């Protein structure tokens, strides 16, 4: 069904190659650095578009490549895409040129390193998503950490060192336990004494409930830190606040999703029983995250911190959607991930634009900007509405599906989660009012340049996507559905639940009748 060209490898390694190439260029020529990285990232995006075009909506992994790497440990270089990863890959390739473009003015020092690291990060992210081997996944997973560490630490704000070390240590605690968990599972999945890290083999592993619970602890710690779920979120505001705009965009846009992706790829298929046992805890944590993130976002004075906490809230929805184990929830979660990547990414970009203009991120320093920068105000408005989940924009689809699925599972949970809809409006409209509306109180704000051509080029594709995805979600939903069905099957196998919540409810009904 596919060509012989190793599309995914090209997609993955092109950024790495450019990273190396960039390192060979002289330090001063920042124009070369950014144009080169822009071209490459655009080209990567094109490749990913080709992949998307040829993607067939089934649950079968596609564009698969396999090359044994370490036979001894059953590790191979094995990549493929399926419905879970394809759109996250697209998100990565879509956001990277934007991140490159948005850094043109902001990054003036060490451009070679900066753009190189962005591309390295892209390499890591794509690799994580396309890896079909658990160890390969892990390798890429950790590779993502390094450029982010440097990006925050080298181009960040005042407390960048604290933030980046916190980010690294937080992430490492989780990921090293993940490593242990993966190895353990791989041994369990071994056939005839030969350990195997192929994810497909891992999916067939049989684990006792006790093992599952422990492994769930290890896996979900790693992924929940990355997501981040409620009590493990404190690295995020710091990292976001200190990171440069591009870093924040990637962090919020893609890196956080890796946690969710991990749940989809590993936790649910491998540990179905434990997932079900832990579901109430995870759901409650997600709901706390939704409400807590929103409330705490409201009291922030730093715009970027506000947006950062809003991520906690949004990702709470995603996790909530996953842990109700129904197709709608999974699909909604998936969709919400992409939405969050776009809307929060856009918000961070806007915060960055404001920062470039005023060199502050304190809400009190702004006010009345809609008058001086009307176009920016429009862009901000649309991004905010997308984030709030206004119907017609992308955010709605995800939230709606998630809440619907949650309601089907438990109306009470849904009621609590839906209160986040109100709170989301509260903090974002509060932000918008403080920044864009009201009289101009600071003299500096009276003569700010409006959206430049470059900035418009950055924002327009995002805004268009928000609208398109809000009105035509089906092209995406259709492609992710088979894979989601498959996970649902895997996760619900142990508890004899069926995949679609409709069917699940019917079965409930049936059993009630039967009892009677």
């Amino acid at each position, binding site marked *: 069904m596919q060509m012989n060209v190793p599309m995914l490898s090209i997609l993955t390694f092109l950024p790495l190659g450019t990273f190396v190439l960039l390192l060979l260029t002289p330090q001063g020529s920042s124009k070369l650095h950014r144009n080169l990285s822009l071209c490459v990232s655009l080209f990567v995006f094109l490749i990913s578009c080709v992949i998307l075009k040829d993607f067939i909506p089934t649950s079968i992994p596609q564009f698969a490549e396999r090359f044994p790497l370490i036979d*001894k*440990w059953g590790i191979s270089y094995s990549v493929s895409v399926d419905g879970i990863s394809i759109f996250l890959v697209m998100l990565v390739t879509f956001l990277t040129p934007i991140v490159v473009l948005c850094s043109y003015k902001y990054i003036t020092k060490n451009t070679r*390193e900066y753009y190189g690291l962005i591309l390295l990060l892209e390499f890591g992210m794509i690799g994580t998503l396309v890896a079909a081997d658990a160890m390969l996944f892990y390798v890429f997973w950790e590779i993502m950490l390094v450029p982010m560490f440097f990006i925050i630490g080298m181009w960040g704000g005042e407390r960048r060192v604290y933030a980046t070390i916190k980010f690294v240590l937080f992430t490492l605690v989780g990921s*090293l336990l993940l*490593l*242990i968990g993966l*190895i*353990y599972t791989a041994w369990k999945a071994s056939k005839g004494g030969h350990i195997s890290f192929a994810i497909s083999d891992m999916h067939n592993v049989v684990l006792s409930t006790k093992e599952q619970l422990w492994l769930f602890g290890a896996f979900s710690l790693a992924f929940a830190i990355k997501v981040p779920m409620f009590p493990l979120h404190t690295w995020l505001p710091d990292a976001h606040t200190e990171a440069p705009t591009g870093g924040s965009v990637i962090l919020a846009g893609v890196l956080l999703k890796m946690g969710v992706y991990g749940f989809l790829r590993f936790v649910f298929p491998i540990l179905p029983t434990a997932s079900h046992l832990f579901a109430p805890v995870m759901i409650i944590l997600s709901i706390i995250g939704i409400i807590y993130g929103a409330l705490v976002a409201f009291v922030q004075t730093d715009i970027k911190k506000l947006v950062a906490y809003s991520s906690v809230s949004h990702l709470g929805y995603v996790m909530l959607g996953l842990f109700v184990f129904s197709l709608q929830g999974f699909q909604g979660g998936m969709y919400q991930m992409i939405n969050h990547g776009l809307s929060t990414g856009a918000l961070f970009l806007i915060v960055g634009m404001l920062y470039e203009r005023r060199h502050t991120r304190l809400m009190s320093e702004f006010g009345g900007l809609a008058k001086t920068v009307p176009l920016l105000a429009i862009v901000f408005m649309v991004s905010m509405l997308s984030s709030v989940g206004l119907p017609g924009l992308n955010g709605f689809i995800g939230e709606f599906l998630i809440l619907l699925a949650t309601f089907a599972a438990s109306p009470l949970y849904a009621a609590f989660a839906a209160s986040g809809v109100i709170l989301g409006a509260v903090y974002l409209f509060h932000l918008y009012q403080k920044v864009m509306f009201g009289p101009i109180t600071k003299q500096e704000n009276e003569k700010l340049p409006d959206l430049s051509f470059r900035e418009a080029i950055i924002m327009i594709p995002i805004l268009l996507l928000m609208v398109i995805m809000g009105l035509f979600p089906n092209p995406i939903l259709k492609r992710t559905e088979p894979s989601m069905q498959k996970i649902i099957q895997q996760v619900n196998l142990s508890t004899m639940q069926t995949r679609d919540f409709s069917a699940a409810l019917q079965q409930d009904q049936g059993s009630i009748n039967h009892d009677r």
Partner: protein
Amino acid sequence: MTADVALLLPVIIPALGAIIIFLLSAFFPSRAFALFITVAAVILGAVFTHGWNNSYTLFSGMLHIDSFAQISALFCFAISGIAAIAAPSYFKRMNLDFGEEYYALLLAATAGMVIMVAANDLMVLFINLELVSITTYIMCGMNRNSQKSTESALKYFVTGAASAAFMLFGIALVFGSTGSTDLTVIAAQIHSGNSGFSTPLFPLALLLIAIGFFFKLGLFPFHAWLPDVYEGAPTPTTGFMAAAIRTVVGIVLIRLIVDLFEPGMPSLTAIVWWISVISMTIGNLGAIRQNNVKRMLGYSSIAHAGYLLIGFVALSSTRLLGAEAILYYLISYSLMSLGIFIFVGQVEQKGESDLQFDSYRGLGLRQPFVGLLASILLLSLTGIPPFAGFWGKFSLFSAALHDGYTGLAVIGALNSVLSAYYYFRLMVNMYMKTPDARETNSSYVRAPLVTTGMAICSVLMIWLGIGPVSIGNFLPSVNSLWVSIGNGVSVLLH
């Protein structure tokens, strides 16, 4: 006999090289020539290990030359070679004479190491271990201008001599129990169960030997010398010690565990478990609080020794997974620690070495290439994939998990997080802090040879980690590396 000589060439060449340099230094002192001889001897020696493909027994069983010895010897040569090319810059800066003797000592130690990895006799082991140790005592004290260097030599000598005495007494007791020092004979005796194996003195004797090795690895509670000695010794020496001695002792310990400890002293596993846990924790906690980079690396190598022991916990004569993991880990660890030590030393100026973290401020940006190499090494030390350091830890954890030591693996993993703090701290200083004005005097000294050494280490970190294909004979693909490690270790199975 000629065949024997040919087989012994990897030992003879460095030994001869050492003697030649000794002689030359007395009459025609030339550092460059000494370096040349050293490198040549190392390369030649490495080339001649090619003959070690098959198994041979030499000197009535005292040496077992086999593929295990081959792969180990190759790395001994690699380490010595890199340690050698890193030295000139240091000696020049420190304004020291006797540079030639350094190379000679290095070669003598190499010869000793090569014998050790092939040794199948406790006394051969001991004598050569002493050769290596005494050589390093001297190398530690070579920076005579430095108070610290002298102190380091003194401390190393004092503790080292004590450990040697313990070990020797242990070997004597083993000899008493079994009537032989030949490992094969001892193992056979233990397995036949008719000899001193059943005597209660035997485990104690083994313990005394083990203590000697634990000391050399720097494991708790025999670790205390390590930070001081590492800090005080001339940095190339520190690198050599951290890399070479650790590797050789570890490799020898594999043999000993398989032939001696595992059958003769089953309770050792539990002890090793605890020592491993405490060592990594103490090493990491100690390193967190250091402001001196060299000392930090010293503590961190205590922690690394702790990781290494994970492999020993998961090692026995029937399950060689641990052995493979240890071998790989040693190879990777020795290269990266050597690389990082020679990097660290390049900031040193004449006089007392005081390598504060602050001294590295902004270095990564001023010296981008060196910075990149150092970052690779640091990431590898932390255990960030895809570098070899990660795969070392991975294989250790994997071996431990295979044998059911989940707790140990988890503790190891959590300890890695601690270690990330101080390794990343160095990168933080290199990239994220601007240098103070007063720090100008301690800037990095460019030295092509040092950079080459670092580059070799870094490239190997990548290639031994994920190299998909073999390039020539000396850059194996990761798959073939594991195959040869597997083959090497399988020799140990009886």
